[in-house]
């Protein structure tokens, strides 16, 4: 029964092995792409089948055997959670890889082959993470996914900014991963297993130790903080935009960054036993959502706006999980994956056509690029939470969940964030897609390999929303005033953006002027980046100073001391060699005396 799940895993892995191990194949760029796309398409087919049929499977094989049962095991776990993620990962992967054929058409074939090898590896890693039946396998694939992120952010490794961004992503997430691994090892120490099924059974029975559990889960949550870009470990995600846009769409919108939310959702039976940690998760999520939204309001780079938006929406998901409504958070994860990928791919089409990311160098793009423009507007509407698109339902579910969980503070923050989300997205729409075209820009519509995925995603966004609307479950979400409230906030945000950027209304501009200090602080990213850089530099340089001092004065000092002692000793001993025969006779006589003494007293 584990066959299909293993096939989903195995196809991208096979593609990666082929591309990595057969350089002639990889050097033929488009051929490598075709191979990887075929593998992912196959995996998508199997995943859809698994999901549609509602199959549940759990299979485990021993990895590290030991006397009292295996220390570690690997396997696959297919349930509703992982089946949905399988479809999401393979689906978005497939669309992004097709899109990349066109987006990266200017790349030399060997580089393109490298790109697709990394993409195949990433698909394999993310799928392995999703299918993990236990913390250990999840952690192994967690790290693999981080590696792929590094490789793909730094795809254009000759660009210093890209290389730095890749390293920064790696370091920051590594900090979180440290907590993760310490947490799961401590958990293993307390319970003797890494796997979810036994752990959840223990939790249900009440067999988990209560005191240490909070600390352990906090450490595990740290991994999620890093990977899902929660404050304060969010600083890597905006810089990760140095990678190609399809990579941003796949990894930093839909899949890798959601691994943290996935972790919390998957381990909810354990987290439910530590309400303090959940409260922290909720608060951190809400604060992240709010801060990231403020930073998105002042960004001029279209991809950075989308990056901060992703951070903000991840905060939404975490807030829902922390409030005890993980299904709402996961639902938002799925819908967000679709329309954020749509937004990124549309932005990519714009960047590919114009060669710039700055929205103030764009304008009136709707005219020349109506397909892309439609995609972007649909995505923005979904993100802002406008009925009847998918985003409205999932966001409302999150708000309802947070309210129902008894968390008024986070709820307030999330509500304000809804307003800000609509504002910053439509700021981009009004500045870049409507209005007068920028003098230096020469936009043209994207080729079909890029617009194709866009239309697929548009259809998915609309379709998911229609399904949710038709489901009738919309009515079950939250108190009656919630839906109008969220719609109203979204509308207010759109209105303000229209007023500021389309009409240039003086009242709106005065409001902007009032908020200028906040804007300034937001532009400086609340000093977090600078803080990290200073701390990092301080720690490393400080350590190297200490080590250097020890090396110069202690280690070298010992050696020098030894040599000085030898020299001094030599000088002293040299005086014995006076060159005068009489002194030597002294020595001989003295030695004979010693012999006498020895013979008289020792030999007796």
């Amino acid at each position, binding site marked *: 029964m584990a066959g299909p799940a293993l096939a989903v895993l195995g196809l991208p892995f096979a593609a990666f092995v082929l591309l990595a191990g057969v350089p002639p194949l990889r050097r033929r760029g488009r051929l490598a792409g075709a191979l990887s796309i075929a593998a992912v398409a196959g995996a998508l087919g199997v995943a859809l089948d698994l999901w549609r049929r509602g199959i549940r499977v759990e299979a485990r094989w021993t990895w590290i055997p030991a006397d009292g049962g295996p220390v570690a095991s690997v396997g696959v776990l297919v349930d509703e959670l992982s089946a949905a993620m399988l479809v999401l990962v393979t689906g978005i992967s497939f669309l992004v890889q097709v899109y990349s054929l066109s987006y990266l058409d200017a790349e030399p074939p060997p580089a393109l082959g490298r790109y697709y090898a990394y993409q195949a590896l990433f698909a394999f890693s993310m799928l392995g993470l999703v299918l993990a039946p236990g913390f250990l396998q999840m952690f192994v694939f967690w790290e693999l996914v981080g590696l792929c992120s590094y490789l793909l952010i730094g795809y254009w490794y000759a660009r210093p900014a890209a290389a730095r961004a890749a390293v920064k992503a790696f370091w920051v997430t590594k900090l979180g991963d440290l907590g993760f691994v310490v947490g799961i090892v401590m958990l293993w120490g307390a319970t003797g297993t890494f796997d979810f099924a036994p752990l959840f059974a223990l939790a249900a029975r009440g067999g988990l130790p209560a005191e240490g559990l909070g600390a352990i889960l906090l450490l595990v949550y740290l991994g999620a903080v890093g990977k899902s870009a929660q404050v304060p470990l969010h600083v890597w995600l905006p810089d990760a935009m140095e990678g190609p846009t399809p990579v941003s769409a796949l990894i930093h919108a839909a899949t890798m960054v959601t691994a943290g939310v996935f972790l919390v959702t998957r381990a909810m039976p354990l987290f439910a036993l530590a309400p303090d940690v959940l409260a922290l998760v909720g608060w951190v999520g809400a604060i992240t959502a709010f801060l990231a939204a403020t930073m998105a309001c002042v960004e001029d780079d279209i991809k950075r706006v989308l990056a901060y938006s992703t951070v903000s929406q991840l905060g939404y998901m975490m807030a829902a999980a922390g409030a005890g409504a993980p299904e709402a958070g996961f639902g938002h994860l799925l819908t967000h994956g679709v329309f954020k990928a749509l937004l990124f791919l549309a932005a990519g089409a714009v960047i590919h056509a114009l060669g710039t990311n700055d929205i103030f160098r764009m304008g009136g793009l709707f005219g020349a690029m109506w397909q892309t423009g439609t995609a972007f507007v649909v995505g923005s509407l979904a993100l802002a939470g406008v009925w009847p698109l998918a985003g409205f339902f999932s966001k409302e579910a999150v708000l309802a969940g947070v309210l129902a969980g008894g968390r008024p503070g986070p709820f307030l923050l999330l509500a304000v964030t809804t307003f800000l989300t609509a504002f910053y997205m439509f700021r981009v729409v009004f500045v870049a897609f409507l209005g007068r075209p920028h003098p230096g820009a020469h936009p043209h519509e994207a080729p079909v390999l890029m617009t194709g995925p866009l239309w697929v995603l548009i259809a998915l966004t609309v379709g998911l929303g229609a399904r949710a609307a038709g489901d009738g479950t919309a009515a079950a979400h939250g108190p009656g005033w919630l839906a109008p409230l969220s719609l109203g906030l979204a509308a207010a945000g759109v209105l303000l953006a229209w007023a500021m950027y389309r009409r240039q209304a003086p009242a709106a501009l005065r409001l902007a002027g009032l908020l200028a200090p906040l804007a300034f602080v937001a532009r400086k990213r609340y000093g977090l980046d600078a803080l990290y850089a200073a701390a990092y530099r301080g720690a490393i340089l400080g350590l190297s100073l200490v080590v250097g001092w020890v090396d110069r004065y202690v280690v070298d000092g010992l050696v020098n001391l030894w040599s000085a002692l030898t020299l001094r000793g030599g000088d002293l001993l040299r005086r014995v060699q006076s060159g005068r025969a009489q002194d030597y006779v*002294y020595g001989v*006589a*003295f030695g*004979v*005396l010693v012999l*006498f*003494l020895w*013979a*008289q007293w020792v030999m007796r």
Partner: protein
Amino acid sequence: MTAEAVAFWAVAGVLVAASLGVVLTPNLFHAVLYLAAALVATGVVFLLLAAPFLFGVQLLLYAGGVVTILVFAIMLTERLAGERITQTSRWIANGAVLAAAMLVGVLGFLGRAPQAPPAPAAPDRTVDVARALTGPFALPLELLGALLVAALMGAAYFARPED
């Protein structure tokens, strides 16, 4: 007190006094003369020890030959220097201590050894010495001759005139 004992103590006193004179007197020439006296006294000791042959050899070679050589050497170095070479000593205290320690050490050994019974009057060993020299010690005797030739040549080389 037997006659031998009286003789012994007398010669011993002369010998020790002469030796002290050798090492203590400032004048080098006087030191050589004191040495001559000491060597003669030693020869008398040899007589007391029933070794008249040795007494003869001592007088001939030591008191005669060596002292002569020493006198010549002093005269040569004195003349070359153009002034009387005076004799001063250094580190007397150290040397005295060390010498005294050596004496104590040896006497200590002697003290522990059991007293030998007084030996009977010894016969003259000269014939035995002669037999030994031409018997087991023949080879060393020849080598001694070679040594003396070598020493002679060496001394002649060292003391050759400068040119």
